[in-house]
């Protein structure tokens, strides 16, 4: 049996250390709330995937941290496209509801922030439980 390094909170969070670069880009354009909106949406979607995979018995992996940042970037694709010219269109809701969340930004931030805390705490607890079981 091959030994595989299990996922930890550190490996989960490490790739997201790149997010401040995105924050700087958004703050330069004066749209900090939009950065948090789509970053939280990407992270929450990733945490739902992780929790769902926990339910079906998948073990956390050391590369899991790439999923949140990949989904954050995916959620921000319309803004990346906008930098090159084309403005937002309704169909861009395929990028984790980018357009519709923009429309309800204050409500979305008020929901997504506590939701991230709940999902993250729950997933952190499952990681901890996993590590205890391995010992």
């Amino acid at each position, binding site marked *: 049996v091959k030994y595989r390094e299990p996922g930890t909170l550190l490996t989960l969070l490490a790739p997201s250390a790149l997010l401040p670069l995105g924050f700087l880009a958004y703050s*330069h*354009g*004066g*749209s900090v*709330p*939009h950065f948090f909106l789509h970053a939280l*949406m990407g992270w*929450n*979607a990733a*945490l*739902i995937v992780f*929790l*769902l995979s*926990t*339910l079906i018995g998948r073990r956390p992996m050391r590369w899991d941290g790439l999923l949140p940042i990949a989904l954050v970037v995916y959620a921000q694709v319309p803004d990346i496209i*906008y*930098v*090159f*010219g*084309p*403005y*937002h*269109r*309704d*169909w861009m*809701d395929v990028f984790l*509801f980018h*357009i*519709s*969340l*923009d*429309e*309800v*930004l*204050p*409500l*979305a931030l008020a*929901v*997504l922030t506590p*939701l991230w805390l*709940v*999902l993250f705490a*729950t*997933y952190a*607890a*499952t990681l901890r*439980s*996993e590590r*205890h*079981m391995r010992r």
Partner: protein
Amino acid sequence: VRRTRRGLPWVCLALCLGVFALAGLAATGLVIERTARTPLVRVGQQAPGFTLPSTGGGERSLAAERGRPVLLVFVPAMRCATCIAQLRAVQESLPTLRRRGVVVLAVSVDTDAFQRDTVTTLRLDYPLLSEAPTYGQHPASSAYGVYHFDTPNAAPVSTYAVVAIDAAGIVRAVTVRPEGVISSDEIVVAASVA
């Protein structure tokens, strides 16, 4: 195993909460985005008032321009090719409009920082007014019925539009062109009725 099973109800609870919250949020946004359309402003009606941050500094309001004809220009954004062409068309018409004493104000849902950058880059001599952040706050474009205009490829921005308002604050001409640029000649003609 016992430990895992003990935690499972919490995982299920968090999952349900997460899925329902995200689905509810997306559905709310989708419904608002696609139903919050307002009727286009009509010629002869009182022009809806607004106060917005201006790239010229401070805020500009329509009420403060009473006594002078105003040309209100709506553009979807600052960076797209046709948006830039529209902003340049307004710039081209500016000398003629200024000779006639027309005040030119352009509105978009971009942030004021982004607009200031555009004014510098394109060397625009008229103020851009910001309706950002976009969340349900489009006091001008919603009031004039040009926000999220009903087109086949609809967008959560203002469509290309020019509204001429006379010195008494009455709408005298409305030109809407979702597909693209309203030329400088058309702008001058529209402003001439104000």
